[in-house]
């Protein structure tokens, strides 16, 4: 029986430069307070790991870009980039 082949893509979403980041500012302040005086700045982002069946990495990457533009990213505030984490390989 043929096994399904998957590619695992990671979307990393970060705040655009200059966008206010109250969460990052609070974490920066907290790290400094507990002794990490060397910390200059922390910014907060998030990532999505997306598993998609197929072998054609270019096609899959384009599909993930569409997902970013349609839902995952707010272009007013956020930038993103896509990394290939695994694959193409059989589903784990």
């Amino acid at each position, binding site marked *: 029986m043929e096994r399904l082949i998957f590619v695992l893509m990671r979307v990393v979403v970060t705040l*655009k430069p200059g*966008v*206010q980041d*109250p969460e990052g500012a609070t974490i920066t302040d907290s790290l400094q307070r507990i002794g990490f005086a060397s910390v200059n700045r922390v910014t907060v982002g998030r990532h999505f790991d997306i598993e998609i069946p197929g072998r054609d990495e270019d096609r899959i990457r384009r599909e993930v870009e569409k997902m970013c533009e*349609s*839902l*995952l990213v*707010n272009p*007013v*505030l956020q930038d993103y980039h896509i990394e290939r984490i695994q694959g193409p390989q059989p589903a784990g």
Partner: protein
Amino acid sequence: MCGGVIVQFCVVTYPGSNCDRDCYYVIGEVLAEPVRYLRHWAEHVPRGTSCVVLPGGFSYGDYLRPGAIAARMPVTGAIEDFAAGGGLVLGICNGFQILCEAGLLPGSLIVNDHLAFSCLPVHVRVEGDPSPFTHSLKQGEVLRMPIAHRDGNYRPPSDGAQPQVALRYCSPAGELGEDYNPNGSQYSTAAITNERGNVMGMMPHPERCAESILGGEDGMRVLQSAVDWWKEVGSYGI
């Protein structure tokens, strides 16, 4: 001239909306205008609708970003068509977040600068740009309404375009200042409209201050403005 004009409201219910019943009650019982619910799967705004209200709450659990998922639901696309045709659209709190995510209003709402959920009465000042929702209010007038949100920190679009501000947080006397800004919003923004004025998003909750027994009636004045405007202007087409 106003007799006989019906102002039909619709209140949208997304999974996780929690102010929909309050809005429905205030419109139907206090404002005494016809109102119906519109569900998130609806593909059209019913014919004859004058004003769609997107209520507060936590649509889709605030997952991803507040309002992000609701903004992609069929009913939101229908509301976009309705607004393009000149219909009135009012987003309250989470409804404001949804309108920004859907691109019906410019900019975005991020977490409050102090990171906490704020639930308190605030004062807001009526600004100058004309809109049906401030039609019966005077420029510079101060209203008192409650807020209840964690993500109400308004950020304008990054292209530098300035939105049309309808309400700004202020002191009881109408002065602007950091002390009166409950969430860090740029330029103390509490409500904005689109360029045409027929779509407004506001963080304060007018439906929570529509009867004196609940501590104030200023919220009614915003809703009443939309009704007055529709009866005087809107029903003749915009």
